[in-house]
């Protein structure tokens, strides 16, 4: 007896084994979603521990070494296990083939391998955590990272392995977008999310190998005393920073570009308008991917590099703001006179735009050498990169999660609860990080477990904000888990979106489409008449 055709990819084989051996990009996307959510939870717990320690001056709940290990784990988990893979590996895997009318990604077996590489890397890094954990911060700066007695090695090796997962994912998306677009789907008809993932993939494959090599060098230095980064052996610790930031600055755009893709989709869908200046959004995506490679020196203004070098890197960094501004104006142009539906994905989108704008403007100030030296290695930097990296990635991740939840699981979630949680999270976020800007400006250094008493009120405010955030996330976890089983059935296109991914059923069947998709129109095309536009 042949089994009846499954209704959706979810019911096509229900055993654990059928998930673990699947080549289906949608299941791989869901697996990544579960894994990244787990590490987001873990990284959040570490963050709360840090905020609790900083509630009072002196020792509150942990000693200095424990604090150092905790912020290292928080950084490593959030950067490499959550923010970098979250949107490309989870939502990219799920949506890119659906959006371009393909049955799967170009190399499905490699895609599955990327899940296992991620799990292997994460396990090695976690094992290092139980061995005591590193105390270097997620940046592994030499020469400290080559000399400290803590368990740096497993964390390095773990991140190295996760790098392969990133490269494989990026390589797969590039090949997929180039070769598997449905007939008639030209480059300038690609949904903006696909463009964003494509730009991200280019950064991933170009930058990650350099990171892999530099981490391998630090590991070698610890094992055999290679001497590359150790001044005592003739090496140069700054070479580490150059190679590290050559990857890790573009890595910021690995986190932000996919987020911008999500936002472009959501803005269009919830204002029911065509994306305003589609081409400029595309070109600015590629522009950010390109310029991102020439800005790494702005992490090293205080390293003693030449004044000319600092100036050049500062100017290049400011270019990123121009490309980002193009995107922000495009989103505003899309929202302008749109028929706006205040749903939770749009709330997160607005939060995203605020954080990106606020954090980005401060970023321009940081690219100025004189201001940078005042704020260097203070809490101000912590607040800045949390606004940009976390504000952007987490807001977009939550927007994506809410926007595509009905697509992925065929169920709706309680809208009022979701809107409430969104407001809670946005305000929690502001309350957490605005005090940190102020702390940094007053001179509180980053990475310190202790501080003089006059900083306490701001630290308390920040910790209070972090608790709001925690409640918000718990609420989301609660109602989404409930909705998985008990949510109202969504139908194929609950938002009435014109995004290409909604042309298949929700949840999609195993082979994505029951009839071959046609692409007579461009992406995000709402039939609504063009409104006379002032812009």
């Amino acid at each position: 007896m042949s089994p009846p055709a499954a209704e959706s990819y979810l019911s096509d084989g229900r055993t654990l084994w059928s998930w673990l051996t699947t080549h289906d990009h949608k299941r791989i996307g869901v697996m990544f979603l579960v894994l990244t959510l787990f590490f987001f939870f873990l990284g959040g717990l570490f963050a709360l521990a840090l905020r609790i320690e900083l509630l009072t001056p002196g020792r509150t709940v942990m000693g200095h070494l424990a604090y150092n290990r905790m912020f290292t784990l928080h950084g490593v988990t959030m950067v490499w296990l959550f923010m970098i893979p979250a949107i490309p590996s989870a939502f990219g895997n799920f949506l890119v083939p659906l959006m371009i009318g393909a049955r799967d990604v170009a190399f499905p077996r490699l895609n599955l391998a990327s899940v296992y590489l991620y799990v292997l890397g994460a396990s090695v890094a976690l094992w290092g955590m139980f061995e005591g954990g590193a105390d270097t911060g997620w940046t592994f700066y030499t020469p400290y990272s080559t000399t400290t007695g803590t368990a740096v090695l497993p964390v390095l090796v773990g991140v190295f392995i996760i790098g392969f997962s990133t490269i494989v994912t990026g390589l797969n998306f590039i090949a997929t977008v180039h070769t598997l677009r449905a007939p008639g789907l030209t480059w300038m008809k690609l949904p903006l999310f696909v463009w964003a993932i494509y730009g991200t993939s280019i950064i991933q494959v170009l930058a990650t190998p350099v990171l892999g090599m530099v981490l391998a060098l630090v590991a070698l230095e610890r094992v055999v005393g290679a001497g590359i980064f150790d001044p005592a052996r003739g090496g140069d610790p700054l070479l580490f920073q150059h190679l590290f930031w050559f990857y890790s600055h573009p890595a910021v755009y690995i986190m932000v570009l996919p987020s911008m893709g999500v936002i472009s989709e959501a803005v269009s869908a919830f204002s029911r308008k065509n994306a305003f200046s589609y081409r400029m959004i595309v070109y600015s995506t590629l522009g950010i991917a390109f310029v991102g490679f020439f800005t790494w020196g702005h992490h090293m203004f205080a390293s003693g590099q030449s004044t000319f070098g600092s100036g050049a890197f500062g100017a290049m960094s400011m270019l990123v703001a121009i490309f980002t501004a193009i995107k922000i104006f495009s989103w505003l142009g899309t929202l302008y006179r749109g028929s706006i539906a205040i749903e939770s994905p749009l709330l997160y989108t607005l939060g995203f735009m605020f954080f990106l704008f606020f954090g980005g403007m401060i970023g321009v100030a940081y690219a100025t050498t004189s201001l940078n030296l005042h704020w260097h290695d203070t809490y101000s930097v912590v607040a800045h990169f949390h606004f940009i990296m976390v504000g952007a990635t987490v807001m977009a991740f939550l927007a994506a999660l809410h926007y595509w939840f009905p697509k992925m699981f065929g169920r709706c979630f309680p809208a009022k609860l979701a809107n409430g949680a969104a407001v809670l999270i946005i305000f929690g976020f502001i309350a957490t990080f605005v005090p940190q800007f102020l702390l940094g400006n007053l001179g509180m250094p980053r990475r310190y477990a202790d501080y003089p008493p006059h900083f306490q009120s701001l630290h308390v405010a920040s910790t209070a904000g972090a608790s709001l955030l925690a409640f918000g996330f718990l609420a989301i976890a609660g109602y989404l888990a409930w909705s998985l089983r008990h949510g109202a059935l969504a139908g194929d296109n609950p938002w009435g979106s014109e995004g290409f991914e909604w042309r298949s059923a929700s949840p999609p069947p195993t082979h994505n489409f029951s009839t071959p998709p046609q692409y007579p129109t461009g992406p995000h095309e709402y039939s609504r008449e063009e409104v006379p536009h002032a812009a």
Partner: protein
Amino acid sequence: MPPEAVTEHWGSEDARKQAAYLGMWVFIATEVLLFAALFTAYGVYRSVYPEAFRAAQLTMEVGLGTLNTFLLVTSSILVALGVHAVRGNRPGLGGALLLSAALLGVVFLAVKGVEYAHHVKEGGLPGDAYRFTEVPRVGASLFFTLYYLLTGVHALHVTVGVGVLTVLGVRSAAGTFSAAYATPVELGGMYWHLVDVVWLFVYPILYLS
């Protein structure tokens, strides 16, 4: 049943080949950047310690390095001929050529081993283990660190390549590949040429001064 266009993952063998090629080129780009980090480190330290690097270079086994260059270039030619033979529907000949290229790869590794043994005997070891008396430690120990890293990472690639060529050679000789289906052989060939090209950069900067 869903229509043909949807059940077929790829429209045609051509599309499949195109994707495989693109994937390989992207992979090669990542490999180039992997080595780029090491070449950068070499460039930086060569400019910091020019004398020590020159002196350390003079102790290299130029003869063995040159022999290895010949071995790799020859094997690259054999691979190119092998790919050509498979494309021309002579998989038996192609398999033989690929296997001989793999054999040259093994000889390359053996020569490399002899070189390493020499250095170890003399004390030309990386970092802390450096005991070489002919060239002062500062700078020269970094040269040796980079020497082992560059040649070691390269040798790792040669080892993988030997495995790839052996599998492709055996399968080709068994008649798996033909003019109609040569993609794996072509991709394996591209990988081997990458290994060869990287060596053509490693060889002059380490052995020739």
